[in-house]
C-alpha cells in the first residue's frame, strides 16, 4: 500500500531495495508455513494445551479466510529496513519484525472490510452473513495477535525496556488506527457535517498510523534511540503521514481514473485513504441523506459516489492550491524535526526524491 502513499515508490524503493524485498519475502514465506505448523505453534505461540487443541480449525478457520487479504502488500517492511540501515543497523537480523508490520496491515484490511460492509447499514438483519463476517473478523484478530510471540520470546534480543516499548508500540498502533476508524465512521454516519481541518488531519494520522509511524518507531525502539530522538521522529513522521495523505488526495482530484484500479478486496481500506476531506471542507460540500432514509446507517460507498459527483462539477484549483501550501509546511516539519536530532538523512533524501520536494 505504501506504493500508493509514496510517489515513485517503484524506483526509489522497490528497485533500489530489491535484495531487501527478497529477504523480506523469504521470511514471509517461511513464516506463513509456520502458521499451520502445530509443533511450532505449541512450542512458540499458543503453548501445549492443558487439555486438547482442535487444529482442524486452522485451515478453514484462518488460512482460507485470510489468503485473499494476504495477497496485498503494505511494503512498510521496506521502509523499516531503510530506516534501520539509516540508523546504522544491519536490518537482516530484524527481518521477522516485518511480521508485526505486515500482519497488522492484513488484519486492518479485514477490519475495514467488516466495518464498511453494506450489510451492516441495512435495517433487515442477515444473521448468516453477520456470522460469516464475524468469522473473517476473528481470523484477522488472530493474525494481529500471532506475531506478538516474537516480542514475548524476545526474538530480537532487546533489553527489557526496549521490549516494554515494543509492547506499547504494538498496542498503541491498534489504539490509534481504531480511534481513526471510529471517528471516521461517526463522521460518515453524520454525513460529514461540521468536519473541520484540525480534526480531519489528526484523525488521518491516527488512521494511517501503521504506514509511516509504525515502521519508524519500530526502528527507533530497535536502535534504542533517546526519548528526545523518538519525540522528533514521532512528530516528523506524523507530519509525513498527513503530507502523504494530502498528496494522495490531490492525485485523486487530478486524475480520478487512477483510483478505479484498486484491487476489489481493498476497496474498503481505499475509502479511508481516498476520502476527499479537503474538497468537502474547502468547498462546503454536503451529502444528501435522503437515499439512506430507510437504512440504519448510510453506506460509505454511496456517500462517496455523491461526493465524487459533486467534485467532478466544481473547479478544484483553489483547493489544490491550499493543499500544496499545506503539503510544503508538513514536509518542512518532517525534515526539520528529523534534522533537529540529526536522524535518517538518507531516508529523508530518498523521500524528497520520491515526492520531488
Amino acid at each position, binding site marked *: 500500500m505504501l506504493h500508493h502513499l509514496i510517489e515513485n515508490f517503484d524506483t526509489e524503493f522497490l528497485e533500489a531495495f530489491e535484495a531487501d524485498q527478497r529477504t523480506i519475502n523469504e521470511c514471509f514465506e517461511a513464516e506463513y508455513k509456520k502458521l499451520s505448523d502445530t509443533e511450532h505453534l505449541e512450542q512458540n*505461540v*499458543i*503453548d501445549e*494445551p*492443558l*487439555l*486438547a*487443541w*482442535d487444529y*482442524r*480449525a486452522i485451515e*478453514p*478457520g484462518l488460512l482460507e479466510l485470510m489468503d485473499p487479504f494476504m495477497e496485498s502488500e503494505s511494503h512498510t517492511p521496506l521502509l523499516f529496513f531503510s530506516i534501520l540501515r539509516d540508523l546504522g543497523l544491519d536490518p537482516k537480523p530484524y527481518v521477522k519484525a516485518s511480521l508485526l508490520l505486515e500482519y497488522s496491515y492484513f488484519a486492518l484490511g479485514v477490519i475495514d472490510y467488516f*466495518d464498511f460492509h453494506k450489510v*451492516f447499514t441495512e435495517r433487515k438483519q442477515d*444473521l*448468516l452473513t*453477520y*456470522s*460469516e463476517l*464475524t*468469522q473473517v473478523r*476473528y481470523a484477522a484478530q*488472530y493474525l494481529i*495477535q*500471532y506475531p506478538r510471540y516474537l*516480542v*514475548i520470546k524476545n526474538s530480537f534480543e532487546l533489553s*527489557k*525496556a526496549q*521490549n*516494554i516499548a515494543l*509492547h*506499547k508500540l504494538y*498496542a*498503541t498502533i*491498534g*489504539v*490509534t488506527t*481504531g*480511534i481513526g476508524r*471510529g*471517528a471516521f*465512521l*461517526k463522521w460518515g454516519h453524520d454525513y460529514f457535517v461540521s468536519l473541520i*481541518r484540525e*480534526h480531519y*488531519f*489528526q*484523525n488521518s*494520522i*491516527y488512521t494511517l498510523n501503521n504506514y509511516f*509511524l509504525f515502521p519508524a518507531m519500530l526502528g527507533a525502539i530497535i536502535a534504542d534511540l533517546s526519548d528526545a530522538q523518538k*519525540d522528533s521522529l*514521532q*512528530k516528523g513522521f*506524523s*507530519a509525513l503521514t498527513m503530507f502523504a495523505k494530502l498528496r494522495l488526495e490531490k492525485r485523486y482530484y487530478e486524475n480520478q481514473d487512477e483510483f478505479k484500479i484498486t484491487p476489489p478486496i481493498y476497496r474498503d481500506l481505499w475509502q479511508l485513504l481516498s476520502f476527499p476531506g479537503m474538497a468537502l471542507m474547502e468547498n462546503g460540500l454536503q451529502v444528501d441523506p435522503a437515499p439512506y432514509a430507510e437504512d*440504519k*446507517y448510510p453506506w460509505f460507498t454511496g456517500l462517496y459516489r455523491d461526493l465524487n459527483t459533486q467534485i467532478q462539477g466544481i473547479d478544484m484549483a483553489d483547493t489544490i492550491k491550499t493543499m500544496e501550501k499545506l503539503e510544503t509546511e508538513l514536509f518542512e516539519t518532517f525534515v526539520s524535526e528529523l534534522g533537529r536530532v540529526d536522524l535518517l538523512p538518507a531516508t529523508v533524501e530518498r523521500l524528497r526524491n520520491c515526492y520531488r520536494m
Partner: protein
Amino acid sequence: MKKLDEITKRMPPEFNDFYRQRIDFIKASIKNYFPDQIDKDFLDRVVGQPSLFEPDLKATYDTIFLPTQEYLGRGGKVLRPVLVAMCLEAYGADIRDFEPVFGAIEVMEDSSIMMDDYIDNSLTRRGGPCGHIAHGYALANVSSCTAFALSHYLFYNNELKLPDDKALKLLDYMAWEHIQMAFGQIEELYWTQSNVNDITVDQYLQETIARCAFLTFRGPMRYAGILADAPPQDIAVLEKIGEYLLVGYHLKGDNLDMSPDSPEWGKVAGEDITTGRRTLLINYLLDKADKQERATIESIISSRTEDEEKKKVVYELVLKYDIFAQTRDLAAEYNQLAKQEIEKLSVSDEYKLLLNQFADYATRRRSL
C-alpha cells in the same frame, strides 16, 4: 444500597463482607481509570503519541469510550477486580497501592464482552441493549477492540512504575493471553461456521480456557500474584485455580443461556442456539439423542434461528436427557479441583476461605 443488597444476597458471609468493604473503592477506581469525559492530555497519554493537530475529542469519546461506558454503567458485579483485590491482599499487598489496576481489569472485561455480544448476536446485556444494537455492528467492532487495546494503558505505559522485569512479565503474559484468546475464538467460530459436531469435551474446555481465561479468572489471579510478589510456585497454582474456576463458571453460563434462573441474567434465552454454538451442552445432547432427534437438533442449530418454538424443541430434549445435570456435575468436578489447588497456596486460612467462597459463588450462583 438496595442494589448492593441484591447483588450480595447470595454471597457466603465472609465473601459478602469482603465484597461490601471494597466495592466503593473498586467502583471509584473504574471511574478514574476510564473517565466519562476525555481531554487532549488524556488521549495523548493513552494513545502513546502527542497529537500534531487537535483530535476530535467528541467523536473519539462517542465511538470509543461511550459504548464501554454504557456497559460499565449498568452495574455488573465486578467480580474480576474483587478477585484481584482478594489475591493482592492474600499476599500482603495494600490495594490502595494498586488503585488503577481494578479499573483496568473491569474496562478490559466490559469492552471485551461487547465483542462477545456481536459474535453471539445478543440483544441485551445486563438489561440494556448490546453495543451493536445501540451503535451498529461496525462501530461496536471498532469500539470494543479499540477500547480493549486502550484499557491496557496502565500496563503499557507502566504507570505503576514497576521495575522493568515485573512490568515486562505482565505485558508478556497479557500478550500471550491475547494470542490464546484469538486462537480459541478461531476454534469456536470454525465449529459454529462449519457445523462441527464431533468436538471432544477436552477440546471444548480447552477452547473455553483459551478464549476466556484472560479475564475469567486465570488472568486476574496471575496478574495479582505478580503484582503482590507471590512466590513463583504460587503463581502457577493461582493460574490453575483460575482455569478450573473458569470451567465451572462457563458451564454454568451455558446452562443459564438455555434456562435463565433469574431476570438478573440480563440476556435473551437460547442465544447459543440462535448463534449455532456447539456448546458442551449441545454436544452432550447430540451424544444422547436418537437418530431422528439428532437430525432435528442439527437442523435447528445450523439454521441460526430466532424462532422460540424451535428453540423450545432443543430445550425440551435437554430436559428429556437431563443434560443440565451432566454439565452441572462437570462444573462441580472443576470446582472441586479449584478447591484442591487453593489448599496448596501459601496464604492464610482467612484468604483460603475467601477464595473457596468465591469459587462456590462463581460456579454455583452465577448470574449477570
